[in-house]
């Protein structure tokens, strides 16, 4: 059971992060939050980028844990697969949420 968790955790976190940030963007546009300004910056971009970086940070922590002596699996096979899915989670987070930092929002 723990081994299954090791294998599934990083992609699961990716899915949560992905849908939350998609939802966050929807919320921003749906409730007119894009008009709010903090100084010269408008609110959405820093918010989205912060969420993006947070998601990446979490994935790095998870990946670190999968390599650490404390949390890694006893089975060599599970170690391999869980690290591979750990990398998948990290890369997927960076890749699929990249638009949060680059494309225009709410148009």
């Amino acid at each position, binding site marked *: 059971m723990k081994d299954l968790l090791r294998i599934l955790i990083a992609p699961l976190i990716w899915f949560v992060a992905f849908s939350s940030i998609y939802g966050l963007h929807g919320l921003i546009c749906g409730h007119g939050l894009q008009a709010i300004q903090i100084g010269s910056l408008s609110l959405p971009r820093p918010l989205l980028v912060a969420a993006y970086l947070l998601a990446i940070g979490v994935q790095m922590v998870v990946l670190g844990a999968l390599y650490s002596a404390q949390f890694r699996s006893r089975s060599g096979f599970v170690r391999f697969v869980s690290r591979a899915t750990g990398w998948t989670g990290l890369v997927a987070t960076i890749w699929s949420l990249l*638009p949060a930092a*680059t*494309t*225009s929002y709410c*148009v």
Partner: protein
Amino acid sequence: MSLTFLTLFTLGGCQGELSTLSPAGPAARDIATLWWGMLVGALLILSFVMLLILMAFRRPAKTADEAQQVRVWIVNLGLIFPVSILLALLVYGLVIGERLLPRSSAEVITVEAEASRWSWTFSYPDRPGLQTQDVLHIPAGRPVDIEITSTDVIHSFWVPRVAGKMDAVPGHVNVLRIEADRPGRYAGRSAEFSGSGYASFGFTLIAHDPTAWESFLAGETG
């Protein structure tokens, strides 16, 4: 394979008035270019992969160790190769996407399009009171924003030679930026299945030159 494509290409011809491949506006042109680029890329990749498979059948037997094979096949070809291509394609696609967005600018003209089974009603904020049925008037050479909605089921606004499509969703107003290079008539279709009248559900887009557009706005035509 590519031969079949080419034959079909000549058979089908490029003159079709609904063809996305004879673009008559910046959006359709960007997308057609994108398509040709992707087609070439895809054919190259396809030939490469098929070649690898063919070669597997006629090669002198040799044995490499498993780690080496994993590195070649899985890491280099399976991971690095697609990642580099996909990253480039993704960025290209997003840049074009950004370019086609309906950003506000003084030059832009707005038209409202309302679909219902099975006709389109267009109205023109620049000429209050006028509504046209199944015929949409715009000026040529200027960006136009179509504000699209529907009164009954989901439809989709599509003038293949000019731009991509945008759905007409009840309760929502979606904006599509279009622009026709030259004056003329362009065929439009509703591109979301809408029941029994769907096959023939279309409209005509008429792009006017500046003087014709002025007289259209002044109420002399249309």
